[in-house]
């Protein structure tokens, strides 16, 4: 099948910041993403799990963006401005996508 080169960006971030992140993405012209729930995790600030949370302050989400390679830098700059002071991680993978007209 015909596929096209793209980048898959995965941003794990606090749930309270989701709205701010997607607003920043939109502002940077990124219009496609998918948000996955996160059950728990561990990092420099220790381990946590969804069950140990009373409040929406606690959880994290994972935002996955598929994007054309040439637009990656704009996305990362926008995302970085939001996650900079916050806990969380960002990874980028090469991928191929079907239906490139969608991106």
């Amino acid at each position, binding site marked *: 099948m015909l596929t096209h080169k793209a980048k898959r960006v995965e941003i794990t971030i606090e749930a*309270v910041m989701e709205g701010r992140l997607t607003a920043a993405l939109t502002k940077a012209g990124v219009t496609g993403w998918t948000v996955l729930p996160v059950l728990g995790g561990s990092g420099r600030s220790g381990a*946590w799990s969804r*069950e*140990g*949370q009373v409040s929406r*302050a606690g959880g994290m989400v994972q935002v996955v963006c598929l994007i054309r390679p040439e637009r990656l830098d704009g996305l990362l700059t926008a995302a970085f401005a939001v996650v900079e002071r916050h*806990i969380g991680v960002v990874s980028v993978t090469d991928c191929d996508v079907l239906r490139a007209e969608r991106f």
Partner: protein
Amino acid sequence: MLDLAAANLLSPIVLSFALGLIAALARSDLSVPEAVAKGLSIYLLFAIGFKGGVAVAEHGVGLSLGLAIGAGVAMSFVLPFIAFGLLRGMSRMGPLDAAAVAAHYGSISIVTFVAGTSVVEAAGFKPEGFMVAVAAAMEAPAILSALWLAARTGKAGGVEPGLWREIMLNGSIVLLIGAFAIGWITGPKGLSEVAPLLVAPFKGVLCLFLLDMGLVAGRGLRGGGKVLDRGAIVFALVMPLIGGAAGAILGAGIGLSTGGIALLAILGASGSYIAVPAAMRVAMPEANPSIYLTLSLGVTFPFNLTIGLPIYLWMAQTVSGG
């Protein structure tokens, strides 16, 4: 007061909390699904708001509602400064963490309020129905004080406009005030339609909710205990007494009933663990959530639920001479 304290300690509500706490500390895998816990809290907020509104529909408000809201808001603004001073004196906490903790103690815990209402009513007092509106009004002001304190350290980011809307329209405030309005509008007739859900089973639901609170507090203590020094823990036991006394004196000053005074004391004494932590994560991400959540939820909340509530009721009886 000792009788009251003993009766409180052996109530199903406190024992349910203890069960959760013990289960979590023993690392049982007992857990209440997130969605169920949120469902229970929606029930509790809706019920307490609705019943408050109906009480106002029955007995009217008069001047005292305005006075009580004013007193509550003032407390919420001022208590963080006292808390910040105490923390900086008593513990080795940095200014940013201290400001974040201070915000929690100026704001309120709605579950403490709900459990307190049970205790106060069980002791035969009838608090003013509008106290739930006071509770809602006290959630946010403390955040402002904390941001001001943090700004002095030069570390808090600028507060974006979106944050204020988020705080004022956070789910629990909207639900509490909305249910209060519905209760006020529909009055006793409306209540009679929903009473089989909102009134009779209320205490049982509170038990299940406190079971979950115990689980969460226990898990927090297991992980977060190590970030606290002795001074911080003493703070978390002394600060509620200061807030409680402030609430009792203010309540008597503005002429609330004994039950109302007790609830204002409880609001002053309780520390937030829902609205304020969320705001702190956005506005002061560098402050360590383990510190403020463990103090508020792991130390102060159990203290208030077990020993605090009878003390605040006793304070209220003392200042009101009743």
